[in-house]
C-alpha cells in the first residue's frame, strides 16, 4: 500500500492505495468521484478523460500512485460554458461519454490555444485555425456510440473564441 495525496476538484484527498489501482478506479471506487466513466479500460474510448494540471489524460491508463501531489479535475470540478453548449446543441444522448468529451474538449482547447498542431493542420497558421476538421481530428480519442458528434463539434465551435461564428467545413 502507498500513501498518496492529490487535489481532486479542489479538495485535498489522501489515499492508502495498492500500486496497481488505476487513477480511474481510485476516483470512481475509492473516492466516489463517478463523473469519469469506464468504457473500455484500455484507452480506446476516452470516457475516462480527466484533466491533470490542466492536461487531458485517459485516467484508465494511469496508475493512481503516479499522481501523488498532482491536481486532478473531473467533470464534477468543471464549470465551463461548454457544458451549457453541449446541452443547447444536443451534443449528448445517453450521457455516458459526455464527461470525457467535455474534459477532453477543455484540454483540447488549451492545446490549441498553445499553438499545438494536429495531423490535419496545414499551412503556417500559429495557432492553427480551429476548423470543424481540426476539432474532429483532435477529439477523435473520445467515442460516442449514440453518434452525437455533430452536436459536440458545434458546441466546441460555439465556445471557442477562434471558431466562433466560423461557418466551418
Amino acid at each position: 500500500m502507498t500513501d498518496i495525496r492529490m487535489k481532486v476538484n479542489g479538495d485535498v484527498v489522501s489515499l492508502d492505495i495498492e500500486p496497481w489501482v488505476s487513477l480511474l478506479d481510485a476516483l470512481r471506487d475509492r473516492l466516489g468521484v463517478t463523473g469519469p466513466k469506464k468504457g473500455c479500460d484500455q484507452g480506446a474510448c476516452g470516457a475516462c478523460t480527466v484533466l491533470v494540471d490542466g492536461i487531458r489524460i485517459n485516467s484508465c491508463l494511469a496508475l493512481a500512485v503516479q499522481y501523488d501531489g498532482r491536481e486532478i479535475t473531473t467533470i464534477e470540478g468543471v464549470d465551463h460554458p461548454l457544458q451549457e453548449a453541449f446541452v443547447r446543441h444536443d451534443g449528448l444522448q445517453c450521457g455516458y461519454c459526455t464527461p470525457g468529451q467535455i474534459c477532453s474538449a477543455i484540454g483540447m482547447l488549451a492545446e490549441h490555444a498553445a499553438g499545438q498542431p494536429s495531423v490535419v493542420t496545414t499551412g503556417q497558421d500559429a495557432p492553427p485555425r480551429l476548423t470543424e476538421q481540426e476539432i474532429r481530428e483532435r477529439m477523435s480519442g473520445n467515442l460516442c456510440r449514440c453518434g452525437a458528434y455533430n452536436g459536440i463539434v458545434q458546441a466546441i465551435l460555439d465556445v471557442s473564441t477562434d471558431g466562433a461564428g466560423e461557418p466551418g467545413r
Partner: protein
Amino acid sequence: MTTITRAEPVTRTPYVGRAVDRIDGTAKATGQARFAAEHHYPGLAHAALVHSTVARGRITAIDASAARAVPGVIEVLTHENAPAMKPLGKGGPIDLSAMASGTNVDYLATDEVHWNGQPVAVVVAETPETARYAAGLVKVTYQELPSVVDFAAELPNAVPLKNSMIMEHNAEKGDAESALAAAPVSVDLTFTTPPLNHNAIEPHATTAVWDGDKLTVHEPSQCIAFLRKHLAKRFGVPEPDIRVLSPYVGGGFGGKGSVWPGTLLAVLAARATGRPVRLVLTREGVYRTVGGRTPSTQRVALGADEQGRLTALIHTSVARTSRIGGAPEPITSASRHLYAAPNILLRESGITLDLLSPTFMRAPGEAIGTFALESAVDELAWKLGMDPIELRLANLPERDPVGGQQLTRRTLRQAYTKGAELFGWRRRDPRAGAMRDGRLLVGMGVATAYHPAMILPASVTVRLHADGTVVVRCGMQEMGMGAATAQAQIAADELGVPLESVRVEYGDSDLPDGPMAGGSVQTASVAAGVIAACAKVKKEVLALARRVPGSPLRGHRLDDLHARDSGLHHAGGGQTYADILTAAGRDHVEAAIKSGMLGFVLRTLRDRRRYVKAATAVHFCEVRVDPDTMEVRVARWLSAFDAGRIVNAKTAASQMRGGVVMGIGLALSEQTLVDPRNGRIVNPSLSEYHVPVHADIPRIEVHDVGVPDPTMPLGVVGIGEVGITGVAAAVANAVRHATGKRVGDLPITLDKLL
C-alpha cells in the same frame, strides 16, 4: 377565488414539435447523472467472471484453490457450489417478457459449456482488482465436444423459417423466378454482412442488493418490466419484492434489451455471499456474454422492363440463431413494403450454431436487409442507364405490394425530390469515376430507409397538483432518446401547463409498467397513455369545477374547453387548476391508464390486417475515395425523413444522426471477428472493433418531410431505428459511383476495392 377572464385568449405554440433542450442534459453534462455501477452500499463486494475457452464441452475439473487463497477473495462460485436458479419454464403465448431471456442456459447449474465465453465461475472479492486477479487464477479443464461455429461453412444447412404470429419471414406473390428469367433487364446479386456488436460506451453493470427476500437491482435496462419479471422467475421472489432501478442507461441499441448472464450472476452472487455485489463487465466481457447482430448472406434479384418498371423482386436471406436461444430477424422486411413489383418472392432461412445467441441490434432485419435491397436497386439503375432516384420513383407502390393493405402515409416521393434538391443531386455526373476533388475520386449515392411502426402497451399515471405542477409516472427507459423530455412536452400541451411544471418519473420498476425501449415503440406507446391519462385528469377537474357555484366552467363540456394557462378555458372565461383544486379542497387529481396485453394483441392484429405503417427516409451520401489506397471517407450526408409527427425537433434530429453514424460504421469499419475453429471472438475491444470516431463523421443534415400518422397516437412514429437503415447501401452506392466497383460484402474496407 380568482377567475381568469381574458378578452383575447392567449394561445401558446404547442411544445410538441419544438426543438427543446433535453431535461436531463444538465445532469449528464455536469457529472451528476449516476449510472448503474455508481451506487455505493455499505459492505459492497465486487464480482468478476471467468469465461469458458471452448465452444462446447463439459467441465471435467475446476480448481479455484489459488483464487480462494488470494487475500480479499470472499467466494468463488462454480457449478459445484453455486445455489441453483429456477429454470425459466414456458411463458404464455402473449407473455412478451419471454423475449427478455438472452439465452435459455441455467448458469453455474451444470458442467455443460454452450459457447466460447460462457461464464463458468464468478469470483467475489473486496475490491474489483482482487476479483479480476483471482478470476485469472481459476483453472478450468474441459472435455471438448464437437461444435458448429462457422457461419459460412454451415450455409448449405440453412433451414427455411416459418411465418409466426409476430413475425413474417416469407412472402410470395406471382411467379418471381419466371418473371426474373423473362425480364429484359435484371440483376442477381449476393450480399454478406458480418456479425456486429452494439458497443454502448457504458458496459453492462449490475449492483444487486438483497434485504432478506427483497431485492434491489441497479441495472441499465431497455425493459425494466421484463427484467423484473425474469428475476422473479429465476430467484423465486414475487415481483413486488423486486425493485429494478435504471434511471440512466449508457447506450443500449438493443444490447440492454435482454437479460444476459452478468445480471443473473451478480444477483446470485449477492444472495450466496449475503453482501451487496457489483458486477461490471469488462469490455471483453460484454462481447463474451452479450449477444450481437447475426451475420447474414443475402440474395437480391430484380427484373425490370426497359423503362425500369420492376417485374420481379426476389430477396432471400440466411441468418443465424444459437442452440441456446436467439430469435431470427426479419431481414427481407423492407423488400415486402418498398416497391410495387407484380412478382415478389421473399424467403428467410436460419442456421443454428454453438455460439452465444444473437440479439436485436438497432433495426434488426432492416439495417442489413436494406443494404442488400437498396444496393441491388442501385445496380439495376446502372444496368438500365437510369438515374437511381428516377428508378425508385417509377416503382413506388400505392398499396402494400405484398399484403395489399392501405399505407397510412408514404412520403418517399417528397423525400426523394426535396432531398435531391437540397443535396445537389443534379451536380452528379452519371458516369462512374467521373467526378474528382483534386486527386480524390468523388461518388454520390442514394438509398431508402424503412422501419415499421408499432406500439406496445404502456401504463401511465398523471397527477396534477393544486400548485399547478404535474407528475407523469411511467416505468419507461431513457438511454439517450430524450424520452422524458418528449413525454413532458406532450403532457404540458395536453394539460396546457408550462413545460417547467411537468416532472416525468421513469426508469424504476415501482412505477406503472412501461413498454420496452425497443422496436422504436416507446415514444408513441407512452404518448397514448399520457394523452389518455391527461384527458381523465381534465375530466375530473371539470367535474370538480362544475360542483362549485359560480364557476365559469359550469354548463361547459370538456369538448368546449381549451387546456391552457394552467387551467381550463372557453371563449368567455376560465379557471386555473389551482383555483379549481383549492376550491374543491383537493391536494391533487390523479388518473391512471392501465394497458392490458390481451386487448392490445387483438387490436394490433386487426390493425395489421388493415394498415402498413412505417418510418421512412432517403439518405444521400457523398464519398471521397483515395485512388491509390482506395480508402473511403464520407464527405457529406443528408437525410430526408418521415417519422410521423415529431415531438422534439432537436432530439429527433439527434436520433436520425445517431442512426446514420452507426450505419456508417456498419458500412465502412465494423465487424466482430469469430474464429471459425473455436467460435471465439478475436477482436473483443474498442481498439480492434472500429466504431466511427469524430473524424469519420461529417455534418449530417437532416430534414423532416413527415406528416402525422393518422393511426398512431398523436401521429407519432418511432425514430430510433429508421436512421441506420439504408445507410450502408447509400455508402456502397456512392462508392460504386466513385470507383465503378460494387462491394456487396460489408464492411467496405479498402482491400475490397484494390
